């Protein structure tokens, strides 16, 4: 595989040219929070509003036809991207969080009763915790958690023991947004199915960064967000197997999700429309589709290989700084995320001083408070990478940390 032409790729992202302070160009190391957008995504959305904008479905004029076509083409494009066999298995949502909530409300309330068990993990983002906590409170469902080992991996032995509880659902992140750990999703899903459970994968961090194929994984539900994969904010995806989606009751009620409405009752539409009430985010779906084209033009294998190289280099460099403690596994089991603490300075101070050098990182609990509790630390500083990240940017990070040490040392 040829290495990526990073210089050419960086030119695709206008924001990366921005000077943050006089003479200091932006060093964007916060892609796990949201990825930057290439020109073709921005232009696709701009073109949609300048040329094709109309409400979709049922309009007879050419704009409505174009908008409908663009929206449904986006659905097919996304289906192809994750290897789904049928575009009807792709439901557009606002984001990963809404996709998971959809499953919790619709599938969860139709299928779970008091005493049923859901297995989650200790490394989940709040978006794959709180919807299940809400369901657990309402339905007296029992939540169990696969523990995280000291080096940031899921404890698979404990998982096998938990499976003896005959769970109805196993829901887990394919890649931790804090540890960077890439979990063995295929194995977790196979074991869950053997135990009679269905599975939901939070793909918010994995789908943008590594090849993900829903048929190979045999996953039942996959949730992810456009904005972390070079697409716009306000657009997310729920993939679900046809057989499951068809049996699920609707989520939100309103226009588009119905086949027929009487004064006192309604008949729901078929999938995927059954789950898409109201005017959808068409321009955002168009933007997501352009992002898929962009990622495909580079290749997900090449993207994963590039990030592996950058994260390996980052771990090597950061490990040489005394007082730095990095959370999570080694580079071979990790995506492009490095969360760390520095003994002499608080993560917020680290992030603030780095920002003075034009370096954008994130500090805090990264919406994973229980995971930080697990490691008994209140917060971490997180640097995260993407296709446009370079070794030079890692060097800037290291120099910035030297500055932090100079101030606090």
């Amino acid at each position, binding site marked *: 595989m040829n290495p990526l032409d990073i210089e050419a790729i960086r030119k695709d992202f206008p924001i990366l040219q921005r000077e943050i302070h006089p003479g200091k160009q932006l060093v964007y190391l916060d892609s796990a929070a949201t990825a930057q957008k290439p020109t073709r995504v921005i232009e696709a959305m701009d073109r949609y509003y300048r040329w094709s904008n109309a409400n979709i479905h049922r309009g007879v004029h050419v704009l409505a036809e174009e908008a409908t076509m663009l929206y449904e083409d986006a659905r097919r494009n996304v289906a192809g991207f994750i290897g789904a066999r049928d575009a009807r298995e792709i439901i557009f949502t606002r984001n990963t969080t809404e996709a998971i909530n959809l499953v919790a409300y619709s599938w969860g309330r139709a299928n779970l009763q008091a005493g049923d068990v859901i297995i989650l993990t200790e490394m989940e983002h709040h978006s794959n915790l709180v919807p299940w906590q809400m369901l657990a409170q309402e339905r007296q469902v029992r939540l169990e958690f696969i523990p995280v080992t000291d080096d940031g991996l899921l404890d698979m032995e404990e998982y096998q023991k938990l499976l003896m509880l005959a769970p109805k659902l196993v829901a887990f992140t394919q890649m931790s947004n804090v540890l960077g750990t890439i979990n063995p999703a295929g194995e977790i899903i196979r074991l869950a199915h053997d135990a009679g459970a269905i599975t939901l994968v939070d793909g918010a961090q994995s789908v943008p960064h590594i090849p993900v194929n829903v048929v190979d994984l045999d996953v039942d539900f996959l949730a992810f967000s456009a904005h972390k994969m070079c697409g716009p904010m306000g657009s997310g995806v729920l993939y679900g197997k046809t057989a499951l989606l068809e049996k699920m009751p609707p989520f939100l009620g309103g226009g588009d999700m119905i086949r027929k409405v009487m004064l006192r009752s309604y008949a729901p539409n078929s999938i995927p429309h059954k789950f898409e009430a109201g005017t959808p985010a068409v321009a955002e779906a168009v933007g997501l589709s352009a992002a898929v084209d962009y990622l495909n033009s580079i290749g997900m294998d090449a993207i994963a290989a590039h990030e592996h190289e950058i994260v390996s280099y980052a771990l090597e460099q950061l490990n040489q700084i005394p007082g730095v403690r990095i959370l999570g596994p080694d580079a071979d089991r990790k995506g492009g995320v490095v969360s760390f603490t520095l003994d002499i*300075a608080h*993560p917020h*101070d680290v992030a603030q001083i780095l920002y003075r050098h034009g370096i954008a990182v994130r500090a805090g609990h990264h919406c994973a408070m229980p995971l930080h509790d697990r490691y008994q630390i209140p917060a971490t500083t997180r640097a995260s990478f993407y296709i446009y990240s370079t070794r030079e940017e890692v060097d800037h990070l290291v120099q910035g940390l030297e500055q932090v040490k100079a101030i606090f040392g």
Partner: protein
Amino acid sequence: MDDLYREVIIEHYKNPGFRGELDPHDISFEDENPLCGDHIRIDLRVNENEVVTEAAFSGHGCAISQASADLLLEFIIGKTLDEIRQLTKDDLLELLGIELGPVRLKCALLSLKVLKAGVYGLGEASDSLVEGD
């Protein structure tokens, strides 16, 4: 350009004069900034005239939140509870001597909110405690 981390802040962060806990105490209160997890507890001893004679803070957080707590306690020794009730965010910012953006302002104000909630005997350190007139 590292005005935010001027020496006095770093000095109070690294070598705080008022870090610790007072047991027994007359007033004690603790709270946290849920956004970033900064946590501060403040203990006070006051005499019969409601004058603060001793003060201590504990907890964890960024340099701004911890230094601000230390500077604040240094300032209130010898002050009456009534004088503490009058303190606003402007007083604290004057003590710190730095300009803060909206995110870091919350770090700086946590100690004052905790102090005033304790002095007022409230259950929660709310933002309204530190607003000016």
